[in-house]
């Protein structure tokens, strides 16, 4: 999404001001500021619950792609990471990400303080729009819930890549740092009105880089420090460890696709004008097209290369299409959205085995989907002339680089201090039994 503060001013210019000025005399505005504000807030609320549901999507996708013996752990991680993200983003993240102008270090660092007064006073009714934090934007509470969901998404990405071997608590500690500090920091450079958006002109509409590649960078750092699952790479060969429930994984993908309408559509940040709601419609259409194209591209490519369709690649392909269009879901035509999404799908098919060659064990393909496709999507912005290659490169290097380095440091510290990997025996036995003493599918006889 665009830096909201600045979008706000934009909207103000485009919609609010004139009407404010004229409201007293003559004809009423086509859409009053109050109605605009209500619509914008509603967009965030709808976008908010849709993106929230992506947490379930990630959980199901990952739960379906790990082996049965690690499903309880994967579920525990995904519920816990979302919950911790919700707390950390409120405690530090939100204000770190949205300095609203006053920075500790101009354009780079906002400051660390909880969002005590993040919500508007109850019963604004008595004051109306004058009482609102930002009369030309939307309710702060709705913005908070919407932004929070993006933050949590980055952590979900990490959880998938590091599945089946990482310890619960060290992982959760990392999640707290990622969602409370790392993501909000790098995101503030772009969406908080920081140096990337202001000085560089980096463009990333809904976060191909700011959210997805960021999550992938944190995951990559973790995967490197953590190492591959036992037996995944043996004497130069890759030993696949098939996911335990592809129906569940498919459900997860569909839920993510659903959530993406809120993810990209909500990032328009406004719905209170004919133009804005039409833009949201464009975004819905392009987002859907890119996902479809990504799935088809992966399906066909696998058939061509390996002679067989690979469902897990189709799922990854659809998600890669979604990630690819996320940097610019508005400007493209449906045809361009198709191209962008399809290339995303192609990228996944080629980069999943590539990571394996590099012995980087990414259980669910999170790095290809959110990282490589995210980078592609960020470049694709240039195709619609919304930005320059240079600006995009700088933006990616800044965000992905910073996230990767900071994550690497955190992972190394965690490894040194508490250790991040379960014992060999625990890994072989499965984390559910070894770490939690609770199987996901315990029934022996189905009676």
């Amino acid at each position, binding site marked *: 999404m665009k830096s909201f503060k600045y979008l706000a001013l934009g909207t103000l210019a485009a919609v609010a001001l004139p009407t404010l000025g004229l409201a007293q005399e003559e004809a009423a505005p086509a859409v009053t500021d109050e109605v605009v504000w209500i619509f914008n807030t509603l967009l965030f609320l709808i976008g908010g619950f849709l993106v929230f549901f992506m947490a379930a999507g990630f959980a199901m996708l990952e739960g379906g792609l790990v082996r049965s013996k690690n499903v309880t752990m994967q579920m525990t991680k995904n519920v816990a990471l979302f919950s911790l993200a919700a707390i950390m983003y409120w405690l530090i993240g939100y204000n770190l990400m949205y300095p609203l102008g006053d920075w500790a270090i101009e354009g780079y660092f906002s400051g660390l303080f909880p969002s005590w007064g993040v919500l508007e006073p109850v019963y604004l009714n008595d004051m109306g729009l004058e009482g609102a934090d930002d009369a030309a934007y939307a309710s702060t509470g709705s913005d908070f819930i919407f932004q929070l969901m993006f933050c949590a998404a980055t952590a979900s990405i990490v959880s998938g890549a590091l599945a089946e071997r990482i310890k619960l608590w060290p992982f959760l500690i990392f999640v707290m740092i990622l969602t409370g500090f790392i993501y909000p920091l790098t995101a503030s450079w772009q969406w908080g009105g920081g140096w990337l958006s202001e000085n560089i002109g980096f463009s990333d509409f809904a976060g191909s880089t700011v959210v997805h590649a960021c999550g992938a960078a944190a995951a990559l750092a973790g995967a490197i420090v953590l190492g591959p699952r036992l037996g995944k790479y043996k004497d130069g*060969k*890759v*030993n*696949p460890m*098939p996911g335990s429930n592809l129906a569940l994984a498919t459900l997860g993908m569909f839920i993510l696709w659903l959530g993406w309408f809120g993810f990209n559509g909500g990032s328009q940040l406004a719905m209170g004008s004919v133009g804005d709601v039409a833009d949201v419609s464009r975004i819905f259409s392009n987002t859907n097209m890119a996902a479809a194209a990504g799935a088809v591209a992966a399906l066909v490519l696998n058939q061509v290369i*390996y002679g*067989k369709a*690979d469902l*897990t*690649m189709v799922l990854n392909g659809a998600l890669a299409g979604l990630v690819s269009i996320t940097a610019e879901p508005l400007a493209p035509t449906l045809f361009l959205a198709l191209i962008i999404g399809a290339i995303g799908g192609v990228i996944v*098919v080629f980069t*999943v*085995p590539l990571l*394996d060659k590099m012995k980087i064990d990414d259980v669910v*393909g999170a790095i290809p989907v959110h990282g490589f496709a995210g980078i592609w999507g960020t470049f694709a912005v240039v195709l619609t002339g919304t930005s320059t290659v240079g600006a995009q490169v700088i933006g990616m290097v800044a965000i992905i680089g910073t996230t990767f380095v900071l994550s690497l440091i955190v992972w190394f510290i965690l490894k040194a201090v508490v250790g991040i990997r379960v014992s060999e025996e625990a890994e072989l036995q499965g984390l559910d039994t070894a770490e939690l003493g609770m199987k996901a599918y315990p029934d022996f006889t189905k009676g």
Partner: protein
Amino acid sequence: MKLIIAAIKPFKLEEVREALTSIGVRGMMVTEIKGFGSQSGHTEIYRGAEYAVNFVPKVKLEIVVADGMADQVVETIQTTAKTDKIGDGKIFVLDVASAVRVRTGETNDDAL
């Protein structure tokens, strides 16, 4: 009495059961197993990585019958489970010292 253990292809189960019933077999134990044998070893692709499939799904039958009936049972299984394709399975015969029917306490042949 003999214990006849047979590993066959899953989709042959129903057919074999019918054939055995028709020759008077009145009970058996069926287990889902993974079979390893000459059929094994073909490769599959998962997310771009090739790997060898060593175990193929099979169904194991365990049938205890009176000595006199053993050969006929083995023969029936062999002819019914046969598809002439590799992986059709194996049949093994072991001696059984004694048998008991839980419900009645009847023993040996009466228990079957």
